């Protein structure tokens, strides 16, 4: 897992980008993208065990 401290520069870069976007927004250019959906939230790992389509038992040759 990456710690928050390790991610510092990325966050800063993002903030700068956000500043630019807000700046452009102030100029009257609407940039609503990209955004995070408010509904979806990350969860703990939950592997899904849904059976896959398109497979068959493997037959050994010979």
């Amino acid at each position, binding site marked *: *897992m*990456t710690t928050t401290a390790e991610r510092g520069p990325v966050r800063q870069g993002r903030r700068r980008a956000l500043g630019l976007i807000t700046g452009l927004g102030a100029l009257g*250019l609407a*940039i*609503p*993208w*990209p*955004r*995070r*959906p*408010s*509904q*979806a*939230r*990350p*969860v*703990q*790992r*939950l*592997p*899904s*065990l*849904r*059976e*896959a*389509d*398109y*497979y*068959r*038992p*493997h037959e050994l040759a010979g």
Partner: protein
Amino acid sequence: MSAVTCELCPRGCVIPEGGAGDCRIRVNLGGRLRATTYGRPSAVHIDPMEKKPLYHFLPGTPVFSIATAGCNLHCLNCQNWQLSQRGGEEMEQVYRLDPPELIRAAKAEGCRSIAYTYSDPVVFYEYVYDSAELARQEGLANCFVTAAYINQHPLRQLCRLLDAANADLKAFDDGFYRQVNGATLKPVLDALVTMREEGVWLEVTNLVIPTLNDDPAVIRRLARWVRAELGAQTPLHFSRFQPQYRMRNLPPTPVETLDRARREAQDAGLEHVYVGNVLGHAGNSTYCPRDGTLLIGRVGFMITDYALTADGRCPSCNERVPGVWRSADLSGDRR
């Protein structure tokens, strides 16, 4: 020990019990193949349609975009390698978004469509299929953004639920596919033709990488093939390469190279040829193929001009520009 053969993509992985396919996310548990990222995307965003890029499909609308971990290609220049070249258990973020929740979330965000994108949606096929079926019932459109490395039967089944696709044609060169993507060309060409035949609105993207696939002769062959097999009205996007992942040794594509590729494709008879990843380039915009009128102006993902008539015609000469310009244009049961 019961191994299984996965028949979803041309790799045809033979997976021993307890093992995973080459895409990392299809796993043999007790002799049955499991799709481990079903309903568990690791990327969830609302993007502009222009980002896919789909330029002739519901322009300017937000599209609810998802991907799970895993991919059946291993491109040296992958832009999303943290997502695509890992298994689900390695992801920092996993969302629980089974198809009904996905559709609900998309609607709540005011999206008219869902994009299966970012990594390669081929490998989370079952999740795409079930979500697409539900989306169709709920009046949402389905967009598939893919490298199209998939077998014919699963693709045909899925096409019945897809409204639009942006498919990569990474190079018209099998050696390139083998060397850079860990794949082969032929199944991709077949898949593109199938999508076209099945009536999916199709746009094609070619990422132009300096020295590897920028040879004018290769670009010309690609454009001629698109014209012959997919039609002159198929939008073709030449996208600018940026040094990424395991291909940081090459420079970004010079704009002149993209200009030249665009001219080659136009000379080959394609009517809508775009340049992507170059902000403010004239090739971001849509022009009337008959009289050159600016129809849709774009800067980045923003639409700056929109002159098409409501039924998708040029206001000067009345030429009909192919595409799905409004929800009402979604054909028949695709509406």
